[in-house]
């Protein structure tokens, strides 16, 4: 059931209800989501809630329209993106991934220590080699040397990392399916805390590994493009 964004009889915009993004779209808190349907709903709701279409309403309605439409945009932006959607669900479950990362960064900054990066064990060897090569490439660039072999090897690492990244997304999707069936089994009411915790812990693990690889690929790109 979608939240009552506008009056059923007169169609006027109502004040926003304090609901989560899933409920805003009238969706169960499931992670497998048809983005095309979400987009359609987003457009449909925009046509009712956007301030441009409520510009002649009273000032109270205009204010509600502004709040509702910002909520709609925030919700759509979050739910249409698989990673943001997962992070958001984790947040609803009380796990603040971003906050954790932010806190770690702040601590590293205030203590002057390097932020600890936990290298996924299966990547240890590869990351070690890649970092050496990246360092070499940086040095080469500084003195103007060009080693086509080195760039090639780094390129190969990058391709491998990207494949791992894709594999992790697949793994994440498996977690979604676990989560969704857990929701369905419990008919929308709260699933047992233990079961939820098992699945969310796995999602946190996958997301952390994925972030690590994404940052690595970003570094490689930065060196290659530099």
């Amino acid at each position: 059931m979608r939240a009552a964004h506008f009056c059923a009889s007169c169609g006027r915009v109502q004040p926003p209800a304090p609901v989560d993004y899933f409920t805003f779209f009238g969706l169960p808190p499931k992670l497998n989501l048809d983005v095309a349907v979400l987009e359609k709903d987003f457009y449909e709701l925009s046509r009712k809630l956007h301030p441009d279409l409520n510009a002649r309403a009273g000032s109270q309605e205009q204010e509600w329209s502004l709040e509702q439409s910002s909520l709609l945009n925030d919700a759509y932006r979050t739910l249409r993106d698989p990673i943001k959607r997962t992070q958001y669900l984790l947040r609803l479950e009380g796990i603040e991934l971003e906050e954790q990362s932010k806190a770690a960064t702040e601590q590293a900054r205030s203590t002057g220590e390097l932020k600890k990066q936990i290298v996924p064990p299966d990547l240890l060897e590869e990351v070690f080699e890649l970092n050496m090569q990246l360092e070499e490439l940086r040095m080469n660039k500084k003195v103007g040397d060009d080693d086509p072999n080195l760039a090639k090897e780094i390129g190969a690492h990058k391709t491998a990392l990207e494949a791992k990244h894709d594999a992790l997304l697949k793994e994440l999707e498996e977690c979604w399916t676990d989560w969704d069936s857990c929701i369905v089994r419990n008919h929308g009411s709260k699933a047992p805390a233990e079961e939820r915790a098992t699945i969310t812990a796995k999602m946190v693990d996958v997301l952390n590994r994925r972030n690590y690889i994404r940052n690595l690929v970003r570094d490689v790109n930065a060196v290659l493009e530099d």
Partner: protein
Amino acid sequence: MSSDHIVGIDLGTTNSLVAFMQGETPVVIPGDDGSNLVPSVVALDEDNQAIIGNSARRYLIETPERAVYSIKRLMGRGIEDIQQELKLFPFRLAEDLQPGEVLRIKLGNHTSTPPEISALILRQLKRNAERYFGVPVSKAVITVPAYFNDAQRQATKDAGRIAGLEVLRLVNEPTAASLAYGLDKKQNGIIAVYDLGGGTFDISILKLHDGIFEVIATNGDTHLGGDDIDNRLITIALDDIRGDLDLDLRRNAEAVQTIRKAVIEAKIALSSLPSVKLDIELPQGKRYRREITREQFEQLIQPIIDRTVGPCRQAMKDANLKPEQIDEVVLVGGSTRIPKVRALVKEMFRREPHTDLNPDEVVALGAAVQANILAGGSEATENMLLLDVTPLSLGIEVAGGVTDKIILRNSTIPASATQFYTTQIDGQANVAIHVLQGERELAKDCRSLARFDLKGIPPMAAGIPRVEVKFLIDANGILNVSAREQRSGKQAEIQVQPSYGLTDEQVEGMILDSFDNAEEDFRKRQLIEARNETETILAALQKGKKSPAWGHLTSDEKKQIAKMERALAEVNKEDDYQAIRKAIDALNQGTTRLAELMMDTAVSSALKGKTMDETDLGEGPTAPHPMAKAEFE
């Protein structure tokens, strides 16, 4: 409806326009000189009356210290931002300006802020619309460059208020252009709008879907445009003159303006000609002569137009699109008439760009479309809805001078973010928040938007208060902030210190026509204009009576005209502008045949002894569009 016209205004760096929806089509409203474009030039005459537009141009050359152009470049900026501009533009700032203060420009003996000067241009457009409709106009949609930051947007909104306009919406220029284009092409797909104007550059990528215009990504440079090309050419000319003629004119404002006028004309001509000859009269009886070929010109401007490439690439990257995935590219802004710019766009997007609509007018037309949507829509705009984005990320300064981004660029607006704050010492009542805009990691590299002081936090132990601060970017792209202390439920007070803006009170004090006088002023102005028109038409009629055409009228027709002439003269003595206008219209109607007859005789005598070739004005490379006017008469 008709008593409540909402107009669309393009407040441009070089030219400004006002448009509205006439039935199902947006049209530009001309000024009293018949021109659609009102040059964004403001001058003060000897009696300190503000002169705007075409008639202000001559002041630029005759008394440059009483005139200003390209004021848009200074909107929402502080003295520390504009050091580069000051080298190239003859802006004369008040001497006592402090960093962080709103700029004040000297115009004769007066000083005015950029919003006040822009307000004079807006007021002129407002008057043009009022003359056209015959009723007061008080509501407008105004366009801004998509890449304008919060301060620049706020300054534009302030300008509207000072001009006596309620600004219903600020619309991004490229998005407005897409509305004008989309009006007659109801289709779905991805379009890119490349907008290179007089002073700003924007690139916007949109997804069109059953009437929804959804901006996916935008980027740009608010200090890149035709002005930069002009300044490059002026600098070269000044260097040449110094080297070859041993004449240093850099401090001679009149001479610089004369050169500026000449190079702008040359620039425009080079869009259609392979080369042009500059021949400029200088002080001390000297002359500057030089030929510029199109090839040389293109080499000179290459570094300037190349600066549009980075923003285009970034926008495509942000939109996650390759050039092949873009269905259409639309050109907006006078500088896109330059063939080299078109070639660059074609190369970047790998397709021929669209130029069906006049690049000078398309933004104003789109603003009129948006005004129509806000007014409730019509058949033409049914189902049309604009979903725009914020061009820059919004951030908060956190420990270590680092920017913590809370709303990312290219987020659909309205957009919001909530942050929680607490206190660091027991009983602390205030918390300071520094809001930033930009993409850089460090706060000092981002644009400071405002400093907020949260006040009146109930006394509690350190770390206990939980102040919820909500940042909301509205549909104008302007930030609104509200705060609430959650433990006490108290609405925390927020004091805003805009980094480069006017306070509400300041704006209030600047309003040109205070609301009470608006109606009275409007009547007076209409009366003056109606009387002027009466004079014009009566004079024209006297001339008509002496022309051979008069003899062709029947005595009945002549009698009718004489009756209407008397009626107009009679009503002109009274103060009812509407009655005068009615009489003018009646006489106009009654003399249509006379006017036609006069035209026929005039045309036949004008064509005598001339071939058709001589009367043909020829076509430029942008045949469907009239050439942009040069800055000066």
